[in-house]
């Protein structure tokens, strides 16, 4: 499956959700589908999208929080899975695009290429439900189930290690940050 195929499924449903992405291909591809004020692209601080998601979910319990993560980022902050599982925000869905590599910095393999199971780690950390999917059809089913479940859920989407030609976005970091904050205040 290509990442953008899964993102298209997600994109249709997240008009009023709080969305945090990691840097790199995930950010650029979501942006390409059409930027919205409720999207925050964490362009650095690898690993902290999930922790930001926890802070947002605890602060806005009446809103849905979607974290769009990657295998490389998540591996840099695995302890966050145990913290998330402990506080278990029901309003958070954690999507991990696992291309088994650090695509934007040369494509070097990550430990998931050798079999590390991120959904398994999250499940044993205490996530309510986790699943690993390999096709758009399975992703769509898992995504819809997670939205209906309203419990801390993770979907690991195994995607091809391919991405956009450029990682540049016509959206300055601070413009994104203040726009997102304003949307949270008014939304």
């Amino acid at each position, binding site marked *: 499956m290509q990442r953008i195929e899964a993102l298209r499924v997600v994109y249709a449903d997240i008009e009023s959700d*709080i969305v*945090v992405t990691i840097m790199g291909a995930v950010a650029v591809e979501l942006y390409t589908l059409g930027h919205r004020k409720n999207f*925050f692209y*964490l*362009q*650095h*601080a690898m*690993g*902290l*999208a*999930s*922790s*930001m*998601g*926890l*802070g*947002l*979910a*605890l*602060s*806005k319990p009446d809103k849905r929080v979607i974290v769009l993560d990657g295998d490389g980022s998540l591996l840099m*902050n695995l*302890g*966050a899975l*145990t*913290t998330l599982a*402990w*506080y278990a925000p029901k309003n958070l869905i954690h999507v991990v695009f696992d291309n088994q590599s650090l695509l934007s910095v040369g494509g070097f393999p990550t430990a998931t290429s050798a079999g590390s199971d991120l959904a398994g780690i999250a499940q044993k950390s205490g996530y309510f439900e986790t699943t690993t999917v390999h096709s758009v059809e399975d992703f769509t089913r898992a995504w819809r189930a997670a939205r209906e479940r309203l419990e801390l859920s993770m979907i690991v989407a195994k995607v091809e290690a391919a991405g956009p030609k450029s990682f540049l976005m016509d959206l300055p*970091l*601070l413009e994104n*940050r203040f726009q*997102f*904050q304003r949307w*949270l*205040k008014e939304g």
Partner: protein
Amino acid sequence: MLVLQSAAVPVSVENSRIVYNGLKRSGVKIVSALPETWLIHLINMAEADPDTTLVRLAREEEGIGISAGAHLAGVRSALLMQNHGFLAAINPIVSLAFLYKIPLLMLISYRGHMGERDPWQTQGGRFTEPVLKALNIPYDYLANPKDVERQISEAQTLAESSLTPVALLLSRQLMWEA
């Protein structure tokens, strides 16, 4: 979930309460923490307070992300950590808090400074202030109980007006009774 051995260590309950009340009066609703001896009472106070969400971290850098999310969502937060934890969180302070202009209120127990008996704490004490200075993070010492509430309030004010991290160093004089 109280830590049973907390009564056995000479950490000041009275001064911990003053610090905690200062956080409350500054409107802090989320406290992220990693335990350390000097923080025992503060963490227990946050845990026991129904109006405060205590997030127990696995590692300090998570707290920078949590505070960033909380700030953008309009909720005030604070971080409780040891100076070694602060050193562990440098990258997110730089590449999340500074990069995205996120205010942080960091309360850092200043271990390894004058009077420290634990050899393993001594190196962090040497580098805490040089690192704070290198990062140009405004900081102050919490030492005198009568100044603590005002200092916390002023640190909070500066963090929010400047949209940068600020640090308050919890001193031995304030926290330790032995």
